[in-house]
């Protein structure tokens, strides 16, 4: 019997850097410089409509959103643009919590961090809120951003409740933000959770879904590499705040609170979606 030859061990280069949650990398001068370009993209390319900013109270809050459009997620950038033009760059800073695959990515990661994206982490997020900053989170993460197109008008938080505990511990209100149109910038054909598990993406990269997508320039591709988005109309609606302590007390039933916030946002998302005439067109 021949012994199986032992293959040499190959060390793969690390593509994603370990980046701690550091708010000092936010660069107001850079943001101010970027705002006109972003405004052009948002207004002309995506014909963006952002409504309900008057619902945001003048205090640190946790913005909780649904986001669409895979790695491009234009709704996220458009909301940040709208926030900063409404409250000004010098106003209460808005940080967003991102997957390490975003904050630690070569080139893009640095730009994102300058824009106020910090690596998601519970303790760091509590501190950011207690320092009187606001935070934007997308609890559904990649499962939300890469949900099938047929689920584009569904709130998909995948059972993740950390955002509730974060708002409760930091003593801030949740301000829900719902968005449509991002999922018309490319096409997600299926739920890729099984594929992510099969190929080990969930353990290697903490990526929980690997669906088949159709985008420019990739054509059909498993997963969500950055792409050139279709010029879909983006609509965003800021809903009225939810005070978890007022509604659920000091010791909430997290499942109950999760169901409530999801339900409330589902109503907002369905109502926003009812304004759509045609996908992409808006």
């Amino acid at each position: 019997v021949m012994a199986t030859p032992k293959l040499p061990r190959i060390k793969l280069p690390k593509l994603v850097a370990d980046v701690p949650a550091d708010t000092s990398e936010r660069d107001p001068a850079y943001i101010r410089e970027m705002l006109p370009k972003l405004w052009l993209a948002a207004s002309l390319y995506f014909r963006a409509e952002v409504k309900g900013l008057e619902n945001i109270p003048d205090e640190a809050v946790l913005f909780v959103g649904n986001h669409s459009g895979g790695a491009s997620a234009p709704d996220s950038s458009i909301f940040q643009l709208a926030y900063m033009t409404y409250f000004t760059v010098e106003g209460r800073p808005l940080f967003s919590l991102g997957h390490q695959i975003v904050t630690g990515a070569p080139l893009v990661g640095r730009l994102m961090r300058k824009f106020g994206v910090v690596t998601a982490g519970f303790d760091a997020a509590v501190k950011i809120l207690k320092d009187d900053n606001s935070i934007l989170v997308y609890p559904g993460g990649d499962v939300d951003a890469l949900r099938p197109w047929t689920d584009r008008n569904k709130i998909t938080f995948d059972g993740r409740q950390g955002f509730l505990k974060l708002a409760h511990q930091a003593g801030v209100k949740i301000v829900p933000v719902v968005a449509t149109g991002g999922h018309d910038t490319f096409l997600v054909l299926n739920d890729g959770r099984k594929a992510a598990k099969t190929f080990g993406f969930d353990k290697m990269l903490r990526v929980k879904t690997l669906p088949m997508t159709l985008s420019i320039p990739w054509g059909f591709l498993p997963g969500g590499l950055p792409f050139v988005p279709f010029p879909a109309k983006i609509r965003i609606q800021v809903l009225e705040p939810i005070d978890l302590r007022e509604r659920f007390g000091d010791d909430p039933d997290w499942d109950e609170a999760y169901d409530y916030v999801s339900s409330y946002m589902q109503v907002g998302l369905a109502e926003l979606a009812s304004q759509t005439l045609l996908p992409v067109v808006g």
Partner: protein
Amino acid sequence: MSAEVRVGRTIRVPEAQVRAVVTDPEQLFECFSSTARFVKVDTTPDGQLWDVFLNVSSYEVGSRVEVRRTAPNELQWESVRGADNNARITVEPDRDDPAHSWVHVVLRFRLEGKLLARFAMAIAQPIVTRHVEAGLERLRHHLEYGD
């Protein structure tokens, strides 16, 4: 040429409670009014007359309808002028959990014409579906949480 929209939702509330809201046009239309305009016009021997107009982009489309309770768990409407449509909304115990309810809307509408009507129908059907979905989500949330 006609098209049909069918949308259902489970509501985690007992059927009797849901039925009381769904078969009362004033309470039901209040829940649906965030994406459409519902105005009560008159009372008829068989029911009520309502103006029902969907907010579709920059214009409103709809009709005057006669609304009738046709069974203890069912409400129906039929247009008497404007866009030609009829609808039926029913409440039943949910199949998976009889302590919960299943609310089902069937809405039919008609357009005159051939090729262009077919094209318009293809666009209109998803729009109407999304409006019904939004109304049912609002109804579900209202019944489950009282908001």
